[in-house]
């Protein structure tokens, strides 16, 4: 028995109804190590860590902290054991300052001055950059994340859990985060990172622990392993890392965006004078750091975002042109423009979480027919087809969508959006939070649409994927096009550079 381990899980089991999230997990986190917790979607990584941080309570098994048996029944208990978790979705109060958020919930009198000093001490020690008096709503995503980490350290955590910390960061910010994590490790803290990105696993961690379908598969010393081995252990069988890129055939302009500008409610320019063309039978990748205007661009095309100026022209096969600006999604559909959109916020925009698969399939089609009653038969059939063809794991088509795992939710959404053979298919972060198998399934679906002649706009965050999948890549920076490059010849650092250069200027 490893008495010295910072955390020792022994036979941890957790079930949610009939679903077993963790089965008999026995593993450890050593002192002063960075451990990557790797696993496909729904493999029970977050559940396991939630038990460590007191959000869930195990149904069976024991947790030892520093060799002593621990009973962690609440996040408060977790803190007394020196465990702190930084969640994927930040839990900060926007109108309060960093310091106020950090001391929130702690006992004793509120002394912001003293707190600010202690925060500064922590920041200096590990190399953070936080202004204690800055309000949260004024902060960037990466600053908010820093506040979350400092909050955990402020409470004296020795064991830190980070749930997909890099999902929202730019490469530079990720580097900064990793530097800080290394400092913390050198200080003797144990860090667990939940992530999907293999190159980050290789860059930061000492050891990789792998979960598959709720069970612990084993661990690898990072320096002695490689991405292929990790992937094999994670998925249970070898997965080729090559994404197919069929040649573009019979391509002609499908969507012409000219001088498009968008100003948001606060008067900030979100898009400035955007010009580009999307052709049928090609995938146009869109790269850019978060907040560069991708969301506004897609929503403007879909008729969801009021625009300041410019046109979005849809070109029919026979050459007829139709300006989509000023039309809502229904009017666009009525024009016969089959435009499908897989939005970033799947359950908040693309689907209705509390409705079952059938009712979600109806979202696009419920108006069909003259009857005042909605036809539920064909959506049900469509739901069954999508479940069948895309291998959606669900108890039935009568299951609420929010009860499915992330990958399956996405399959339901993509399945519906491609069911009407779109001429334009837009996807925003189509594989965010998805495991490798689901991601490849989505790439295949997108490629299939391309081969069938759809003009595909693929907004992605993983440059490797963008470079492997796209025929052309449009790079946005602060609402301006900073360049359009050929996906087959472009270099990764070239695109990375464009992402930080406004309008392509130096």
């Amino acid at each position, binding site marked *: 028995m490893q008495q010295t381990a910072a955390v020792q899980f022994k036979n941890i089991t957790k079930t949610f*109804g*009939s679903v077993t999230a963790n089965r008999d997990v026995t593993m450890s986190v050593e002192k002063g190590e960075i451990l990557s917790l790797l696993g496909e979607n729904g493999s029970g990584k977050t559940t396991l860590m939630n038990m460590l941080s007191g959000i869930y309570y195990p149904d069976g098994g024991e947790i030892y902290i520093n060799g002593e*048996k621990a009973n962690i029944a609440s996040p408060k208990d977790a803190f007394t054991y020196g465990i702190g978790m930084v969640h994927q979705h930040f839990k900060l109060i926007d109108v309060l300052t960093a310091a106020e958020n950090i001391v929130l919930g702690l006992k004793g009198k509120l002394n912001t001055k003293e707190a600010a000093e202690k925060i500064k001490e922590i920041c200096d020690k590990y190399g953070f950059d936080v202004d204690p008096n800055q309000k949260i709503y004024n902060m960037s995503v990466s600053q908010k994340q820093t506040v979350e980490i400092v909050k955990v350290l402020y409470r004296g955590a020795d064991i830190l859990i980070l749930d997909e910390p890099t999902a929202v960061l730019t490469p530079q910010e990720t580097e900064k985060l990793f530097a800080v994590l290394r400092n913390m490790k050198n200080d003797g803290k144990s860090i667990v990172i939940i992530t999907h990105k293999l190159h980050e696993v290789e860059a930061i961690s000492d050891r990789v622990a792998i979960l598959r379908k709720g069970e612990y598969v084993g661990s690898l010393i990072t320096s002695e392993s490689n991405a292929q081995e990790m992937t094999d252990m994670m998925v249970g069988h070898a997965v080729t890392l090559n994404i197919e890129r069929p040649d573009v055939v019979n391509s002609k302009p499908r969507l012409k965006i000219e001088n498009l500008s968008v100003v948001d409610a606060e008067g900030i320019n979100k898009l400035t004078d955007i010009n580009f063309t999307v052709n049928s039978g090609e995938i146009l990748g869109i790269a850019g750091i978060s907040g560069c205007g991708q969301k506004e661009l897609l929503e403007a095309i879909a008729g969801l975002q009021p625009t300041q100026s410019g046109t979005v022209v849809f070109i029919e096969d026979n050459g007829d042109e139709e300006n989509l600006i000023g039309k809502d999604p*229904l009017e666009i559909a009525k024009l016969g423009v089959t435009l499908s959109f897989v939005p970033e916020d799947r359950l*908040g925009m693309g689907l*209705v979480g509390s409705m079952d698969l059938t009712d979600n399939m109806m979202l696009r089609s*419920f108006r069909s027919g003259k009857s005042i*009653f909605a036809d539920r038969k064909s959506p049900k059939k469509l739901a069954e087809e999508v479940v069948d063809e895309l291998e959606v794991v669900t108890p039935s088509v009568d299951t609420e969508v929010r009860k499915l795992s992330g990958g399956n939710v996405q399959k339901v959404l993509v399945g519906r959006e491609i069911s009407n053979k779109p001429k334009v298919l837009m996807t925003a972060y189509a594989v965010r939070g998805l495991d490798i198998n689901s991601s490849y399934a989505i790439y295949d679906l997108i490629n299939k649409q391309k081969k069938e002649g759809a003009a595909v706009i693929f907004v992605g965050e993983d440059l490797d994927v963008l470079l492997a999948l796209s025929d052309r890549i449009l790079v946005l920076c602060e609402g301006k096009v900073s360049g359009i490059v050929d996906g087959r010849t472009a270099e990764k650092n070239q695109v990375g550079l464009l992402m930080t250069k406004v309008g392509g200027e130096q």
Partner: protein
Amino acid sequence: MNFHISKRADVKWQVSWGVRAAAIVIALLICAVMTTIITGDNPIEVYKAMIVGAFGSARKSWVTLQNVAVLLLISLALTPAFKMKFWNIGGEGQVLIGGLAAAACMITLEGKLPSAAIMILMVITSVAAGAFWGFVPAICKAKWNTNETLSTLMMNYIATQLVAYYVVVWEVPKGSGKIGIINQNSHAGWLPELFGSKYILSILIAVIATVAMYIYLKSSKQGYEISVVGESENTAKYVGIKVPKVIVRTMLISGAICGLAGLLLVGSINHTITTTISNGQGFTAVMVSWLAKFNPITMVFTSLLIVFMNRGASEISTAFGLNQSFADIMTGIILFFIIGCEFFINYKVTVAKKNKVKEEA
């Protein structure tokens, strides 16, 4: 001792109804203990009296059913709005204004038009008045995103004061401050008694409305739109549902059905109008609708429960010389348990002793 609360994944109906039944039994037991402690009366006798109060005679049963019908109708009216997450707490005002419109037709048109024509006008005006009372907060919400909770509530006061004003205008005899029975001799505008019973009309309308609302919400395109808007406005916009249109349309329906309830209260049940004619049912209906989780069929039972408690309460307050407050205490206890048990339907509570982790495979 440590309690651990975990969410139940799929709740079987046997479990949920078992928990509900247990909650009612426990509530009745606690009510019994409270009765004995506070009043010294035999709780069994008190319960018997409640049943007698609600169903003790044919007339009592009919009145109970009629009250259920009115409460149910108002609850059904609020339901589509609630499903849309539009907090219509203006049922009271929508009912009152519908009643006022009916009363206005009866009073001003007596003798000028045949009774049948008056009735038709009553139906049209009361439904229109209720719908208008729903329309005003809806258009404000749709256009300027105002808070519907406040605006619907304010509309209640306007309706109450309008009724108060017209009661004085139309009072009979002058100076009495009351309208009394309208058209007592001519019966002009008195809605017809079906099958020789004055109770059946309201009950029949409530039954039809229940079935219609159930189908409307479950199967119609508009019902589907209501659900989508209620669950996620962004999703609604994404598929091109015009959210303002749905809000206004749904509130027109909501208000119109409330107006219909007002019509029944004035034209069929009371044949008069007072500021308290709806007796707070616009608010009680909120509870009925929520208790039934917006399911029109379940609402039959929840409205029956509330009306039963009310009728039983009046009975025991006279039979045992207890005042109405004691009955309200009992209603409160029972509702507490019925609402509280929903927690135990959705969550499982297990007890784990500290430092002794359960050994379980």
